């Protein structure tokens, strides 16, 4: 019964340290399964993460892995990819890591269209530091820094990614494991900046504060509120209630990635054979 994806984990570091029921484990598995599906060379694949519970995933994955500073995974990943374009670079980030402190790098990664696959573990909260509001915490939800309920409006990271120039944008959830795997695999296929939002549960820091401490219930909420994009597009506006959200592939267009574009500069400058 040894599953083939286990080879992508550093066995000596499991079990991982995430809380019971934490969705991060599910998303991490979806990533390695997508890697397996796409047949990426384990020696030529680099996992880059920021700081956060989710970003600890890099330590469990048996590749070259880089646990950067909070919010900075994308610039590091950009450097890796440009320095050695033969590497496959996958970025793991949290909702805080990617859209709070890392927001600028996120939109600029999209704009440059560097060939990265970015998976955002969206648990709607700062898990690692114990439950502060993130830019993706839905308005009115509670957090330790929003004891009276959040008044901030929240980002739609997929919409932002598309507006900033990402060439592949998709969303799925920890409940929809296989769909999530497919979305990530699609991102790996896209030669350019691919962004996949993976909605996942943080029972400890988000659930508890918001009357949903049971991780299974949180996953059922995903099941009940996620709507496949095709269906979503047909949904009448009054059915698009606040809790409901679309999942699926939102955008995909092929455009020259940064490293390829730079090769032309090198050509022009006469450095191609150096």
């Amino acid at each position, binding site marked *: 019964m040894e599953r083939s994806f286990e080879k992508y984990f550093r066995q000596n570091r499991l079990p991982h340290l995430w*809380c019971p029921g934490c969705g991060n484990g599910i998303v991490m598995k979806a990533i390695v399964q997508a890697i397996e599906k796409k047949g990426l060379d384990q020696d030529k694949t680099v996992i880059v993460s920021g700081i956060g519970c989710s970003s600890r995933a890099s330590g469990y994955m048996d590749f070259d892995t880089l646990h950067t500073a909070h919010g900075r995974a994308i610039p590091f990943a950009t450097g890796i990819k440009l320095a050695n374009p033969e590497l496959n670079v996958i970025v793991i980030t949290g909702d805080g890591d990617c859209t709070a402190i890392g927001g600028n790098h996120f939109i600029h990664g999209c704009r440059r269209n560097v060939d990265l696959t970015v998976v955002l573990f969206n648990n709607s909260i700062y898990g690692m530091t114990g439950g502060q509001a993130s830019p993706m915490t839905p308005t009115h939800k509670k957090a330790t820094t929003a004891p009276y309920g959040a008044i901030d409006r929240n980002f739609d990271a997929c919409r932002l990614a598309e507006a900033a120039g990402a060439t592949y944008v998709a969303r799925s959830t920890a409940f929809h494991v296989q769909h999530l795997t497919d979305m990530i695999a699609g991102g790996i296929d896209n030669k350019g900046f691919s962004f996949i939002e993976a909605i996942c549960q943080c029972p400890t820091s988000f659930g508890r504060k918001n009357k949903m401490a049971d991780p*299974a219930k949180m996953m059922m909420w995903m099941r009940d509120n996620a709507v496949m994009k095709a269906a979503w597009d047909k949904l009448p506006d009054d059915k698009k209630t606040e809790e409901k959200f679309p999942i699926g592939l939102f955008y995909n267009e092929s455009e020259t990635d940064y490293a390829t574009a730079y090769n032309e500069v090198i050509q022009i400058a006469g450095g191609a054979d150096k």
Partner: protein
Amino acid sequence: MNSEITIKLPRCKGCGICVAFCPKQVLAVDELGKVMVVNADACIACGQCELRCPDYAIFVDKKVKA
């Protein structure tokens, strides 16, 4: 028994996700927070538990009839 359920106990954290998503009430979490099989015969090897376990602690294989 159509299936073989393997549990890597050290990995299990007793979150109850497998229990909740098992369509056949095959699983439960014991007092000290570990998954246990309480109704092996009912298992239909649907794989829901394995699919969603965040800790890669439970694996289900269809039993190959010998």
